[in-house]
């Protein structure tokens, strides 16, 4: 039993570190983890879920706006991407945040092609992150179920 926990814990640690190293997450995610305590044990999961819902909504908003060929409301796209940037920055979704910055620039220069391309990338990126974090939470759950403690991961 202990070996299973240790194995899971190691897996969790490695996976977390890989997420940081591959640039999916940054320090802000660590900040979030800090906020999770006995009073709000699922804080990170809650925030992240909210974030992904937000992503879905904002991305579909932007996609709709960009679909209006010939009459694209860049301002609308801009405000959405600003929101998304703020959210991703707050949860520490580093890659999404980076793409948002690029998308914002494209939007400011009314570069339609760039916007579409960036948006596609954002879509892919947030879905990837979602899957990865899902894996991470699953690992956490497994550890808890096995009776172990979630290890502190130093980045």
């Amino acid at each position, binding site marked *: 039993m202990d070996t299973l926990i240790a194995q899971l814990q190691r897996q969790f640690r490695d996976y977390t570190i890989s997420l940081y190293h591959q640039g999916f997450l940054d320090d802000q995610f660590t900040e979030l983890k800090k906020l999770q305590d006995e009073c709000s044990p699922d804080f990170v999961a809650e925030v992240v879920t909210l974030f992904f819902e937000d992503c879905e909504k904002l991305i579909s908003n932007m996609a709709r706006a960009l679909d209006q060929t010939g009459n694209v409301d860049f301002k609308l796209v801009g405000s959405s991407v600003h*929101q998304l940037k703020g959210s991703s920055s*707050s949860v520490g979704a580093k890659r999404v945040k980076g793409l948002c910055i690029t998308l914002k620039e494209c939007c400011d220069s009314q570069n339609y092609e760039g916007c579409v391309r960036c948006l596609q990338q954002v879509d892919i990126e947030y879905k990837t992150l979602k899957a990865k974090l899902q894996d991470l939470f699953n690992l956490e759950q497994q550890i808890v179920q096995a009776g172990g403690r979630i290890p*502190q991961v130093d980045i």
Partner: protein
Amino acid sequence: MVCEMETDQIEEMDVEVLSSMWPENVGTEADKQFNVEKPAGDLDTLKEVTIEEKPTIADLTRLPELMNSTQQGSSQLTNLVKQWEYMQDNAVRLLREELKNLNRQREEAEAKELKIIEEYKFESNEPENVPVLDETSDLFRRFRQKKRDALVDSKKIEIYEEFDTVAYWKQKALNLEKMLEASTERERRLVEKLSESLKTMESQSAPVQELTQNLERAEGFLHFILQNAPIVMGHQDKDLRYLFIYNKYPSLREQDILGKTDVEIFHGGGVKESQDFKREVLEKGKASKREITFTTDLFGSKTFLIYVEPVYNKAGEKIGINYMGMEVTEQVDKREKMAKLREDNAVRKAMESELNKTIHITEETMRAKQMLATMSHEIRSPLSGVVGMAEILSTTRLDKEQRQLLNVMISSGDLVLQLINDILDLSKVESGVMKLEATKFRPREVVKHVLQTAAASLKKSLTLEGNIADDVPIEVVGDVLRIRQILTNLISNAIKFTHEGNVGIKLQVISEPSFARDNTLTADTEEQEQNGLTETSVWICCDVWDTGIGIPENAIPCLFKKYMQASADHARKYGGTGLGLAICKQLVELMGGQLTVTSRVNEGSTFTFILPYKVGTSDDYSDDQDEFSDMADHQSEPDDTAEGYFQFKPLLGSIYSNGGPGIGNDFLPHKVMLTSPIKLMNSFVADPSNNTGQSEMLQLENGGYVDESKLETSSGHCPESAHQYENGNGRCFSKESESCSSSQASSEGGTLEMESELTVSSHREEEKAETDLKETSKPKILLVEDNKINIMVAKSMMKQLGHTMDIANNGVEAITAINHSSYDLVLMDVCMPVLDGLKATRLIRSYEETGNWNAAIEAGVDIKTLENEQVCVRSTNRLPIIAMTANTLAESSEECYANGMDSFISKPVTLQKLRECLQQYLH
């Protein structure tokens, strides 16, 4: 074919060569035969000729006949020759006669010619001396040349005829005789003519007249030149009196000038100089030039270039000077202007290059500073993560070794954070971003608070003293945050370098120092106008003194430099960033003051800073009471604000300095807790009736302050510990005690006086009551943010820090919320829909100034509850508004400050940033 022909010819040639080998006389016939046989076409014409000659030479038969006829012919020939000779003689004679005639005729002609020439010579004799008539003299020369040529010719003829006979000589004698006659005749005629000429000479004056005319013309020409040349020319005698003067622009008539000297003619500047110059030339006998500027009544200010040369007579004596002057005023002006222009240009160029250099350096410095600031900022975020994590880690269960390691880690992290904060502070001050605030504060309380804080973390047996002179106003206006920062810095510095004895702060009012006298006056009046208040300025001198190791004299100059400590040894021994004093100095100077230090090695140091403060005339401070006055009220010591003396003894073991709750675990053993925190230095307890003295003693109850400081610093992580402490009433709540602190504490405890039970209990009660008060008056915080996730994160962080907060989703909601209830702090997102943070802040500030929301209504914000005028109570207090910005670039922060925000947090918000912010703005 051609080839064949050629070979044929060659063969023939061979044959020919062969045949020529025969002797000539033998081979003639053969030759002949051979030649005859030769084809005719190939024979030379020359050969044919030789063949034809041969028969004529060979005819010898007619020779005697020929001899006879030859003899006859020769006699006839001699006859003929004689006859020819005779005829020849005759012809010669005739020719000679002819020649004689011709000679004679020519001589006559020559004579005539000579005559004519001589006549002409007489006429043209005199004009030759007149150089003006060069052409005539040329003509004359030409004539003479011709005459010479003619003479040579006749001679030649004579020589040619020398070979002849006596007749010739006779003839020649005759000729000469005739010539003599002719010559005498001619001489006679010439004499006649000469006398005639002499006679006519006197009567005929034509050449003289011509000469005179020429001279006159020449003079006229010269005169014209002299008159019209744009120069003044003159001739002066030995006494420098003018003999002649030519002036194109005469301002005086000639008779006014001639016979006078310069000095007699003009008056004014330059006249004497020119006179002296002329005299000098005359004496030295050397021509020279000089530029002289005249300022005379006659022609104003003019510059002349004067050339003077001495004049000599034939005997070599000086008889005067020639003088030539040209007006060069314009040229001189131009030249001077040009020189000035060139000089200006050079100066401007030098300045330009200097400026460019400065700009370059400044730019470089700015860039370097910007870089440093950015770097620091970038480092701070991850580092705060590291420290934060370490802090959290310290709340978990750790064994002793792990805890020690962790403590080292936290303290190192804190040091780095401190360093970075210092760098950012410095760069803020240097780049002028740092804005000073003017808020009312009570210097006594500030000093008290600083000493308390220091005492709370004191690990040495030092006594901290505060001494404030009576004349220091109860309330002054200044940037309390910065002043507190300076004091804290200096005090912690003093404590660091003091191992035993006292450390203290002394405040006193001084007269305006000389260094500030001129510039503060204007600044004061300006600010007074701005505030619309009648305020007086007061200068307060603050000494922070210690009895520590002191500073060697040679180290003092570099004390305030960045990253400098008195010595490398000190840096190792005492640690620190070396930035503290530099920041203090910069801050003090920013506030218009001065920071100085005096020190003696092993006796202690005193850092003195002098700052100007404004003193409000209004006495009401009801709205400005911070927790200390609250506390003082609560402790029923209303006169606390006027107390002039505080003393603190070390609170050993209360190591909340780092705010790390983990350290709280290694607390002190029971006995120490009973003594040290609640120690009384003097037997007499502070008495409201006793506070009139110059340096009356106020005994401060350390216990109360421990509680306070703990609440402040530990609330985020371990609020239970405070309760533990309260409830435990001095009970030990640590499992282990560090040997050093306990031994220190116990030794300290030995010298301490025990406080009476009664006092202790009464203090405990007060503490409890105070804590209750604190809990009920928790600071109200408003978060203005539109992003749900950001709200969620920030809220959770606030919870961790032990605070709750209200949420507004945009600027309008924020204004409505502020209108409804009062807040202690507002965290404001900058970029928001409906009404952004900058505008909202401006409107809130306008409300604070005017007491109404007119500006907001004008901006289109719908505020229905405006009629509730109860809010006016708060309007006098400035609400701290902290911006939350996505980018930390200078423009953005500038904008925040410009719109009335107090500070800014860069996004994403972290626990550390929030904690710092709350510490700064919630007291």
